[in-house]
Every structure is written in structure tokens, then in C-alpha cells.
């Protein structure tokens, strides 16, 4: 198939420089993930610097979510290495990655429908201990309330996720992630379905978080609202690295325009 040929060409065209464990807070070397015979991520290497906001961009089906599922431990990668804070963490299960300080939001929002916003956030602040008397008296609620306020949900503490508007769900996702007190936050498709002003206010929140010392990786398939937010972008297509650079470089990269915008998209 012609698409495959194009992929190979692109992969060889942009050879990734060697990535070392201490290249950044997160370093990924030669990551590969296959499902059955299908290659979803193909020899992908990149690094994320501390306290930057990195855009991770690619069209639908480019392998963005798979990459992050491998990084966060949801799937074990077929091959490749992941370092986090200088430690090798390849294949570490998700909850352990969270404990190491890596949090994520879900593209398809996954709130717990059975409980209030406040309790959704409180869950992520709980200790991973089996038997405890904690919670019997509602210990977490003050801190959880503070986080809700932070993400702009202070007036919706006692609503269930089903009552939240689309943007509210995103805020809840962010709140839950913040509840784990992360150093690196992966934000999956934050702007999908948001109106202009909403995009702006979420951007502000993310920028604030960065200013407080957090590192952010924002995954999105279109660039609306993204280029103003990010410091640097990585573009992938068909599971391979396509471009890496500042927003302006990305915008003007012919490969990106060809593969990403050329097919009539935007």
C-alpha cells in the first residue's frame, strides 16, 4: 500500500538522535508498539524537558494515545525504553507511575459517575493502603475542595459528573490528576469540544501549573489553541516522529504541511 511506503520514507528521513536517560524529566528511546501485526508506534524517540509545555501532535490514528499508554504503563511497549526522572520505568504499571509523579487525563473522560465531583477528586488523594479508618470522617475533603477551586469547579462540588458540561468534565479530569500531586502531567486532547473562551481559560490554568513547576505534555490532533500554549511541539504520523521544534518551526515544516495539512485538513 502506498501509505506504508510513505511511512518508511518519513521514518528514515527524520532519524532520531540518541536519547539518554537524563535528557529530560521524561525520555523515550526507540519506542515500538504492535497490536497483532499492526504497528501503532514505530521506533519513536523523544525527551521532555522539565517545566516545559510540550505539544504532542499528530492526526487521528497517528499513535499519540498509544504512545502515552505505553509511557504511563497502560500497555507494555513491544520494544524501547522509557526513563522518568532518570530512572528506567519501561512497563511500570500505571498506578506506580502515578506514585512516581506522572499523572494523566483521559481523552474519553473517565469520571466516576457514582459520586460527586468532590469525591472524584478525593479518590486521587487516597493512600494505596488496604485497611484504613481514613475516610470514615471525610478527611480529604478540604484538600479536595482546594483542588476543585483551582480547576474552577468550586461551584459544582456536589454535582455528579453527569451534571457537568463538557468543559466541566475536562476540569474534573484535571482536578483528579492534580489530586495525585504530579510533577509531569499528560493532558490528552484538552481542547476538543471547547468553545473559544473555554480554550483560553484552560490554557491559563495550564500555564499557571507550569509556572508552579509542573511539566506538561499536551496531546492533541489539531492545533487549534495549541500553538499559543506550547513551548515546543513534537509531531508524529503513522507512529513515527515527523517533526520536532518550536511552534513556528512546526507550522512552517513542509513535512508537517504535506502529511498533516495536505490532505485537505485545515
Amino acid at each position, binding site marked *: *500500500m502506498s501509505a506504508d511506503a510513505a511511512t518508511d520514507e518519513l521514518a528514515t528521513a527524520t532519524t532520531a538522535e540518541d536519547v539518554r536517560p537524563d535528557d529530560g524529566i521524561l525520555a523515550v528511546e526507540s519506542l515500538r508498539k504492535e497490536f497483532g501485526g499492526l504497528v501503532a508506534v514505530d521506533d519513536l524517540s523523544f525527551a521532555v524537558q522539565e517545566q516545559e509545555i510540550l505539544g504532542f501532535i499528530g492526526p487521528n490514528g497517528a499513535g499519540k494515545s498509544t504512545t502515552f499508554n505505553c509511557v504511563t504503563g497502560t500497555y507494555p511497549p513491544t520494544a524501547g525504553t522509557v526513563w522518568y526522572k532518570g530512572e528506567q520505568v519501561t512497563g511500570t504499571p500505571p498506578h506506580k507511575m502515578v506514585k512516581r509523579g506522572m499523572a494523566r487525563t483521559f481523552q474519553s473522560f473517565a469520571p466516576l459517575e457514582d459520586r460527586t465531583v468532590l469525591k472524584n477528586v478525593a479518590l486521587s488523594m487516597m493512600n494505596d493502603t488496604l485497611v484504613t479508618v481514613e475516610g470514615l470522617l471525610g478527611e480529604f475533603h478540604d484538600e479536595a475542595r482546594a483542588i476543585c477551586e483551582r480547576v474552577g469547579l468550586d461551584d459544582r462540588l456536589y454535582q455528579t459528573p*453527569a451534571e457537568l458540561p463538557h468543559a466541566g468534565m475536562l476540569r474534573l479530569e484535571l482536578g483528579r490528576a492534580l489530586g495525585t500531586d504530579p510533577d509531569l502531567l499528560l493532558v490528552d486532547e484538552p481542547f476538543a469540544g471547547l468553545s473559544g473562551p473555554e480554550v483560553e481559560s484552560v490554557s491559563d490554568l495550564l500555564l499557571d501549573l507550569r509556572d508552579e513547576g509542573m511539566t506538561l505534555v499536551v496531546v492533541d490532533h489539531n492545533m487549534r489553541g495549541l500553538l499559543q500554549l506550547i513551548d515546543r511541539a513534537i509531531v508524529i504520523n503513522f507512529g513515527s516522529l515527523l517533526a520536532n521544534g518550536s511552534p513556528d518551526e512546526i507550522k512552517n515544516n513542509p513535512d508537517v504541511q504535506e502529511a498533516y495539512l495536505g490532505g485537505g485538513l485545515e
Partner: protein
Amino acid sequence: MSSGTGSETEAAVDSRTSGESILSVDDVHVSYGKVQALNGVDLDIGSGELISVIGPNGAGKSTLANSISGFLPYDGSIDYGGDEIEEVAPESLVERGLIQCTEKRDLFGFMSVEDNLDLGTYVRGDYAERLEFVYDLFPTLEERRDQHAHTMSGGEQQMLAIGRALMSDPELLVLDEPTLGLAPVILDDISEGIDRIQDEGVTILLCEQNVTFAMNHADRINLLENGEIVRQGSPDELRDDDYIRESYLGG
């Protein structure tokens, strides 16, 4: 876009083609639990038209498509071929010629291409002619007639889904995100196919996130945001709209 007026008068005002109104959506509300997915949508499609509904993820496009094809209960009124269809099951709508190609395609994965197409005629019967048309439209399908649907690529599956819908001789075809996740090359085939289907006289409602693609095909475009239609007009009119340019055309 006004709401609240009767669908017939509205159809008369809005319809720009000579065809009679085949579908009128009037003040439709849909909610999932406490979340409002559609918030008073009005839409009118004349016979033979290709109308597109665009909008970002989560705007309510699929909800609209599913309400029209009978999969979701709604408040308000949807009128197809002169009848209110609120109580009508999706299968009966198929018999009446209203067919959806869903976003997930919903093919019979463990059946061959041919069996999938064959099942497309479940409510019609005699199909040799239509099969010929489908194979002519998407020659790949004929090449892969014995292959199981689940083993095909996304684009081929999309062709099969459209082909299967055509087999039941639709009057109104609702296409939900036919371009989702497709490689540009395949996109061209689909694009061409849609044009030819319209040429055959099939009315099409195209729900699409890919704005450029929708602009290239539609007679009229509706922009759906947060469950409401916020802009409406011909592709040319909307290309000049600042809001659209800024938000959707990478302006």
C-alpha cells in the same frame, strides 16, 4: 437561525434546492441523564441535497445522526417523508429508505465483504444492479469480496459501510464522520464516491469534523457547537465568516 416556527414553513423558506423537503428536524432536544447533548436543533433537508453538519468533537453531531436514524429518543419533532418518526424503530426507517453509516461503521466483522453487502439488501431483495453500482463505485470492494470485513483497513471498511448502506437503496443517507482517521489517499476515493452517490439522486446528511472536506461537498453547512446550530449557510458564505475562519480553518 430561528426556532419555534413550523417545520413546513421553515422548509419553504430555507430550502434552496428545488427538491421537496425530505427531512425536517424541528427544535430537537436530546439529553443523556442530566447532560444536554442537543439543545433545540432545527434542520431541513430537501430531496437530492447534500447537507453537512460540522462541529468539534462532542458538539452533538453523532447524537443528531442517531436521533434521526431512530437510535435515540428525543424531544421535539423529526419528520421524515411527511411522518413523525419518534416512535419508529431504526429497522423500520431502513425499510423506508433512511439509512445511516455510523461513525463506528458497525460492519459484520466476521463476514466477507460480499456477505456484508448481501445483508444490506435485507429489506429489499433483488440487488444485482445495485451490487454492480457499489463495485463500480469502490472497485477495492470487488477485489476483496471474499475477505472478512474486520481484516480490512479503516478506509476499506468505510467504503464497505457506505456500500452496504447503498445496497438497501436509500433515499436519505446519513453519513457520520466518514473521513475519521483515514489516510489522505483513501479520502479521495471516499470523496469521489460521495459525489457519485449524490449524482444518483440520494439525499445525504454529512456529519463531519473535517471542515474542509465538508465544505468541498455540501450544498449547505450547519455548524453545531454545544448542541446548538450556531451558523448556517452555503460553503462560500461560511468561508467568509470570521468565526468559522478563526476557529475551524486554521485562520
